[in-house]
Each structure stands twice: as C-alpha cells, then as structure tokens.
C-alpha cells in the first residue's frame, strides 16, 4: 500500500486542473503583455485568477501579484525593509522568512525573533514590548508548516497599528479563513502547490499604495512590482485549485487528523507537538521518544508510508528543527519527531495501515535503541 502523508511538503495536482492548464500551453498560449487578442485573452485569464484569490481573502484584485511561489513572496515582502528599519518576526518561521531575516541583519536591519510558548503561540505582550520607533514590519507565520499551530492574526493585527503586518499564509490558505482587512494585513504570501495546484506559482497580497523593493527587474508586469512574463498556465491552475476547495473536505480532513492523533498517542512515550485546538486541519506532528526520526521515516517509506521528520540527521546542518527547539523540546526528543500531513485524498483505510506500520517500526527501533526504555 502506498500512503502519501506529506501533503505539507506538496500535494497531488488535481486532474481537472491539469486539463485546464494544458489549454494554456497549446491554445491560449499568448503573452499577457501582448496587445493583440492572444495577449488580451491571456491577460484576462490572469485577472480571473487574481480575482479568485482576492475574493478568498476579502480584497480587490489590484492588490494581488503573482510570483514563483511562497518563497519568493516571502522574500519580496521582507525586502521592503531598508537599513535602520526594525523587523519583528518569530522563531518558528519557514526558512524563506528566517533566512531572509538573517540576510537583512547583515544589511543593517535590526531583527527581533519572538519566542513561542510550548504550544507554539506567540506571546502578544512580548510583541507589544518589542515594538519601537523604528519598527516597520511585523512578519508572523499564520499556520505553521511543521507543528500546525495557528496564530491569532486578528489579535496581532490590532497590535500592529502603524506598522506593516505580513503573514506567511502558505499553509493556512484555503484551510482557514483569511480576511486581510479584519487582520489588518499589509502583505500576505500564498503558494499554489500546497492546495493541489501546480508548483512554481504563488501570490503576494500587497495593500494598495504600498511600494515594494522590486527584486526581479526588467519588465512592468504585475503592476510594476515583479518583472518577467507571467506563468499563465500555472496561475490559471492556481485559480482553479482555489475554486475546487470544499468546506466539507476541510471538515473531513480535520476528523481524520483527530483520529490519527488519538491512535498514535496510544503508543507509549509519544507526544503531540503544537496546539491541539488551534491547529491546521491536516497537520499531525508527533515525537516518539527513544527513537531517531530518520530511521522511523525511512522504515515507513519502505513500507509505503511517506512522511517527514524534524530530525537533525536528515538535515544538512545536523541541527534538529528550529521550530521544535523553539517550543522547548529537548534535542533527543526533537530528533524523534515525525510530521504526518493529510489531504482531501487521504482515507481512513490509509490511516489504519499507517498506524499499524508506525507501531511495528517504533517497536523495532526501540528494541535497538540504547536509550532507557521502561515501556518494554
């Protein structure tokens, strides 16, 4: 049995979307900047997708620009900062935020990395206290890609009164309601391939009047905020992916998540990472004590179950996940963490198979572990 439970990494593209996209390679292949009708039609299609995204986050289509994905959107958002500015972000961001923040520090921008508590929540008082007269931007991830915790953007938005507020909504988009007005957002990042759309397509919400520091020069596309001929088939696919989202799916995925959490926590010496209640509908992150995550992940892979791990041994830096360390996990427990991420294609049968295999593998790996196991 093949069970794909790595949907936070990426998702399967819907067949309907592929079919639609194909038309934009072979028939409507015009360049949106061309003035003839091929170009006009391509431009109309772009704007249709723009409209769909804008509606989803309660704003207007002239505030959406397309990018090559969530990473580019995040880079573009943070690069609005200049020397002397102050940025506030968190210790649980995606690498496309924290690497960018580290890079900004080298350019003379001050950065504060907010702590999170053991459930993964940002402390609003710490945020308030961190704001100073140079604070220009607050960037806080909405739904966390590793531990699934959802931050209270409405409350954070209220604190960011005269400060720009950006969120990385790559994982939360189409899973939780996002209202850029209610949340007082100036910038927000989205990506297509996490919601069954194609890879290499993303969007950035840019509040009207806000000037970005353009990163790709050479064309006036995307309201002169991002040069380069638009990825029309991809953008059309992104729009279609949003159209195919069903409330019912979200609800069902959430129920499957709760079932998997309940069953996996029956295994001795396991713990759930991230808030139990304010959690992405598709995310499960569990630590298996006495076990190293890469071993668990690879054994599951050989048995057909595809998951990911926060273990250091599987990272290039040999450091465990910074997110798991930020919620206070000791290193050896962070090493034994596995993320299971579901999608609308996940079935109960697949989860039953997964649970069985996880139990088998955990038992074997605990048997060969020198760490003290009092569950034997």
């Amino acid at each position: 049995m093949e069970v794909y439970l790595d949907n936070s990494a990426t998702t399967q593209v819907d067949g309907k979307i592929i079919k639609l996209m194909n038309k934009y390679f072979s028939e409507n292949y015009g360049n949106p900047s061309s003035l003839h009708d091929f170009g006009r039609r391509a431009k109309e299609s772009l704007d249709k997708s723009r409209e769909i995204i804008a509606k989803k986050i309660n704003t207007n289509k002239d505030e959406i620009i397309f990018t090559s994905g969530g990473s580019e959107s995040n880079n573009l958002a943070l690069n609005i900062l200049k020397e002397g500015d102050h940025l506030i972000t968190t210790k649980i961001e995606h690498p496309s935020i924290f690497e960018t923040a580290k890079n900004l520090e080298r350019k003379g921008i001050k950065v504060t990395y907010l702590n999170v508590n053991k459930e993964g929540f940002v402390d609003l008082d710490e945020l308030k206290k961190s704001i100073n007269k140079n604070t220009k931007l607050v960037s806080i991830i909405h739904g966390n890609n590793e531990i699934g915790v959802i931050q209270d953007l409405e409350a954070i938005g209220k604190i960011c009164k005269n400060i720009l507020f950006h969120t990385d909504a790559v994982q939360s988009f189409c899973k939780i309601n996002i209202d850029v007005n209610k949340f007082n957002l100036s910038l927000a990042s989205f990506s297509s391939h996490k919601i069954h759309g194609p890879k290499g397509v993303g969007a950035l919400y840019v509040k009207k009047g806000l000037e970005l520091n353009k990163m790709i020069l050479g064309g006036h596309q995307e309201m002169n905020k991002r040069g380069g001929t638009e990825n029309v088939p991809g953008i059309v696919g992104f729009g279609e992916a949003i159209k195919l989202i069903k409330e019912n799916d979200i609800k069902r995925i959430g129920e499957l998540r709760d079932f998997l959490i309940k069953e996996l926590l029956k295994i001795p010496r396991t713990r759930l990472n991230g808030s139990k209640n304010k959690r992405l509908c598709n995310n499960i992150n569990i630590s298996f004590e006495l076990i190293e995550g890469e071993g668990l992940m690879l054994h599951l892979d050989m048995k057909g179950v595809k998951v990911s791990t926060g273990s250091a041994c599987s990272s290039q830096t040999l450091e465990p996940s910074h997110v798991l360390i930020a919620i206070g996990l000791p290193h050896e427990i962070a090493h034994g963490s596995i993320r299971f991420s579901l999608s609308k294609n996940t079935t109960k049968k697949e989860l039953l198979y997964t649970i069985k295999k996880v139990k088998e593998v955990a038992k074997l790996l605990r048997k060969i572990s020198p760490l003290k196991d009092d569950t034997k």
Partner: protein
Amino acid sequence: MYNKKVLDYFRHPKNYGVIKNYSGRGKVGNPRCGDIMELHIKIGKDKRGREIIKDVKWQTFGCAAAIATSSMVTEMVKGKTLEEAKKISNQQVTKKLGGLPPIKTHCSILAEEALDSAIKDYEKRKKK
C-alpha cells in the same frame, strides 16, 4: 541518498542487542547531535591462545547511517583478534557499505569510536 547495501543493513540490522556478562562496553555520541551507540564485546581465546572478539552486540539511537554502520562493524569484528579489531577504521566500514553520503560521515564515526571504547574498557577491567 543511501545505496542499496546501506538500506539493506538498516532494514535488517544484525547483531543488535546486549551481552549480559560483557567483557567490555563502549557508549559514545550524545543526544544533541542525534546519534548514540552502545556496543558490548565478549572476549575469548582462539586455538593459538590469542584474545578474540567472541561475540559483539550493539544498540543505536540514530539515523540509517548510524544503524547500518553499527550493524556492519559488528559483522566485521566478530571472530577477529583484538589486535585486528583495533585496526578497523570508520573508512573501512563505510567502504564495506559501498559508501555513505558525505554529510553522514559524522554518524559513521560512532561505530569505530564505540568499538575502540569497548576494547579500552575491556583492557582497563583486565588490569584491575
């Protein structure tokens, strides 16, 4: 990222466990870096009266590279004289496995260190 042989040793580990009345014990690594290995040896004598590793068992908390090298090193030293066993290096173990990704070198060193440490432990006990 791993070759077939490494995955095979990882999947079907050999000689894992503990020796209750071991002659020497080595425990290396730390939880911070993600790999810990414990190795037990039982020393006996061959027909010519030389000290040999009669039995060897390991337990490892670690990635596939750490588990595969643990398994391989114990296979390599079983039945060898102490002098021969001391000469086994991490490179030899890795080579026997058909190579490891460069980033995993640090995980494979554990096996050599655990073996050295178990032999030293035995020699210390013997002196007492």
